[in-house]
């Protein structure tokens, strides 16, 4: 069953915290992964793969570059879950 947006955000925040140590409260929808959270491309890919596992979705390589903000990722995952 598809998760609500808030549940996806909370799960994603845990993944970001595991990979980077960034506090889960700092992972908010409007934050940019690169500019606000200072997450580099390799960490981003680790987050993507862990998100695929956690939420049971597929996030293609070519889609990753479009995930600018946390909100972009949450929207993509929510939609991909159907």
């Amino acid at each position, binding site marked *: 069953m598809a998760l609500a947006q808030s549940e996806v955000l909370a799960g994603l925040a845990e993944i970001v915290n595991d990979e980077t140590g960034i506090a889960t409260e700092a992972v908010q929808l409007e934050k940019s992964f690169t500019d606000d959270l200072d997450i*580099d*491309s*390799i960490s*981003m*890919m*680790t987050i*993507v*793969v862990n998100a695929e596992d956690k939420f049971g979705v597929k996030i293609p*390589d070519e889609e990753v*570059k479009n995930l600018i903000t946390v909100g972009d990722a949450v929207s993509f995952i929510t939609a991909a879950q159907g």
Partner: protein
Amino acid sequence: MSQPVLNQYETVKYSRIYSLGAARGDITVTNDDVAGPIDSSDEWIRQRTGIITRKRASKDLSLMDMAVSASLEAIAGAGIEASEIGAVIFSTITHPHQTPSAAALLADKIGANPAPAFDISAACAGYCYGIAQADALVRSGVAKYVLVVGGEKLSDFIDPTDRTISFLLGDGAGAAIVGPSETPGISPTVWGSDGSHWDAVGMTASLLELRDGTAQWPTLRQEGQTVFRWAVWEMAKVARQALEVAGVEASDLAALVTHQANIRIIDELAKQLQLPESVVIARDIINTGNTSAASIPLAMHQLLEDGEVKSGGLALEIGFGAGLAFGAQVVVLP
């Protein structure tokens, strides 16, 4: 008149790596030396790649010079004569001639003429491809001893302004002698390719485009994120398969020697494999850089030289790179 019966090769049951040889570039290139053109810094490069310095070859030190040096060390270490070598396999992507092969010249220079000699193009997987072929040649009885060399002078094919791969790269050559053994020394190889990602790592242009004036001197580049995902999560599957076909557990390993692509690939791959702390993880990239086909034998040679692992222990070696191509096997350390 009766039909004559053909002779065929007499097979040998097992093979092993007898010895290794190593040669690195003669110049130590710091992060500060490469940071300017990519608008970066020592700290940024260390954090993202683990590299502190990389070894590069000066203009006067050729790929062949490094290959000869590494090969002679391996031959001496094996305690054989060069004339006993039954095949020379040279894995490289930086031999500057389309033909003839680097291997034929190497065979002649080291005294292995007229051994069959050929190059293989499997980039960063090339050394493991070479060991797989050497193992097959030895066990099938085609050759008693096989020289496998992974060697690159990548600095001839870099763009100092490229932020995808050039700043990682170093130069060197690693060599191994493979020969017959009374006990198993090289596991079955798990190897393959995925040409659907042919463009993920490669050159900026072809030689034809260079000839036609539509491109500059071709240099290396990669799609970092695509390669990272494949190198960690797909290669973790390959590594597990290699352990399975070898019939060993991760806890049986003395060392994990991956292609030295990037420290974060190495560390994440090790994490995925859930290796016990007793397994030494090769991190030669820190002071050598990424030397493509040379990186696994160079890293293994360094572990042995530093006494971090002992002869007779088991090492999982796994190469992966342009093609995409990959190869993994468990070997007994020479």
